[in-house]
């Protein structure tokens, strides 16, 4: 994050709002205002320009833009609330202006609906388990939300659970389940014995789960392994021996700060030994 200090010292009232398109891929700071493409013409170089009111409905083409993490709507502009790189994704099917979001580096997880996470069962209370997912409060998991749930096969306190959130907003306690909408487990449920659970930053998880990430394929060629990624920054790894498991955990933690060349060097060195 190397930005000049003068940017941070600049008063935000005085800085001009920049067009979102020109800032794509650059680092943005909290408090910056971004203009959407349709407003760039209106806000000319002189600031607020008077536009004649047009009665022709077609002249005013309003594009629907989705405001992703790190951005908030402020009037008709976007206000940046987190520090990071601005990204944009074109809409898949025609209509809409796509999604804008800020790629920020964080350690603390905030529950989001639909995210798959690894949780640790901390308590049983009434009909539900309390699961620690690393957020501000423990999530609740019902006894019945497992495939083939019976009185006998239930997780115990201290087990690791891989599930997804069905309710996760700022006003309510988060709720998670281990079945999908069809009632099937689909890989979710209690995570088996042994293995190692460790924590990394959220940005690394997103990087590892990106479709074009080669790190996991390279790791797979190294040793046979089982691996589970939770969007809350937790990774569970299991290999044949404890030493291999620890090596894999160290590699994944170090991946964040290594370039791809350094990584390839380390993999080749490990493959030889």
């Amino acid at each position, binding site marked *: *994050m*190397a*930005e*000049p*200090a*003068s940017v*941070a*010292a600049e008063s*935000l009232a005085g800085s001009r709002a920049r067009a979102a398109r020109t800032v794509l891929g650059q680092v943005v*700071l*909290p*408090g910056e205002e971004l203009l959407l493409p349709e407003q760039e013409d209106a806000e000319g170089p002189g600031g607020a320009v008077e536009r004649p009111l047009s009665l022709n409905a077609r002249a005013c083409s309003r594009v629907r833009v989705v405001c992703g993490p*790190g951005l*908030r709507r402020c009037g008709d502009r976007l*206000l940046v*609330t*987190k*520090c990071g790189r601005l990204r944009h994704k074109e809409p898949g099917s025609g209509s809409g202006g796509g999604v804008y979001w800020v790629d*920020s*580096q*964080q*350690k*603390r997880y*905030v529950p989001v609906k639909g995210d798959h996470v690894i949780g640790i069962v901390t308590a049983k209370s009434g009909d539900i388990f309390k699961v620690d997912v690393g*957020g*501000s*409060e423990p999530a609740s998991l019902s006894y019945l939300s497992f495939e083939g749930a019976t009185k006998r096969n239930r997780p115990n306190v201290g087990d690791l659970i891989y599930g997804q959130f069905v309710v996760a907003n*700022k*006003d309510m306690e988060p709720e998670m389940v281990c079945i999908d909408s069809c009632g099937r487990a689909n890989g979710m449920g209690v995570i088996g014995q042994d293995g190692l659970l460790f924590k990394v930053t959220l940005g690394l998880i997103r990087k590892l789960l990106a479709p074009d990430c080669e790190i996991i394929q390279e790791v797979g060629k190294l040793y046979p392994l089982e691996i589970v990624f939770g969007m809350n920054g937790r990774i569970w790894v299991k290999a044949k021996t404890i030493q291999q498991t620890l090596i894999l955990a160290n590699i994944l933690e170090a991946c964040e*700060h290594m370039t791809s060349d350094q990584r390839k060097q380390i993999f080749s060195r490990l493959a030889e030994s």
Partner: protein
Amino acid sequence: MEEETHTDAKIRAENGTGSSPRGPGCSLRHFACEQNLLSRPDGSASFLQGDTSVLAGVYGPAEVKVSKEIFNKATLEVILRPKIGLPGVAEKSRERLIRNTCEAVVLGTLHPRTSITVVLQVVSDAGSLLACCLNAACMALVDAGVPMRALFCGVACALDSDGTLVLDPTSKQEKLQQCLAAAQAASQHVFRFYRESLQRRYSKS
């Protein structure tokens, strides 16, 4: 696991002079900042201004005790620890000032019933301590990814005995200021007023 951002910034006014010794200009001391240096907190930053250095750690949004939770926004706590000794009244007043600044800037309504804690540790004090604490707190909040509606910073400023303005004073300059002498002179007025009003009260009885 460290990201270093060393910013060599010497901001000068029109007739500012060099860095040290500082003449009658407006120039800040050399400052540097390092982020993500502590492994436990969700965000951390170390801010250096000349010889003044403050380490800040941010935890949040995390669990909050039911007695302290606010139903519609995050509870913000600031803890300032001096370099030596236990925190006293001066630390409490600085904590309150930093907390008011942070509360104005942090979007607490996005995380109701959670707590955001900022812990500041003074590593070395050579003047402009409060400004350095504010800067460290801001960088730590940004490092933790707490949503904010703006950035904030602090700049200390003192008046010299000849009436010139000095930005970012060292502790030596802070002590020699006319402010201290003027405050002492004014406090004599206040004490005299105390004595007069108490004398008036007891003279009636």
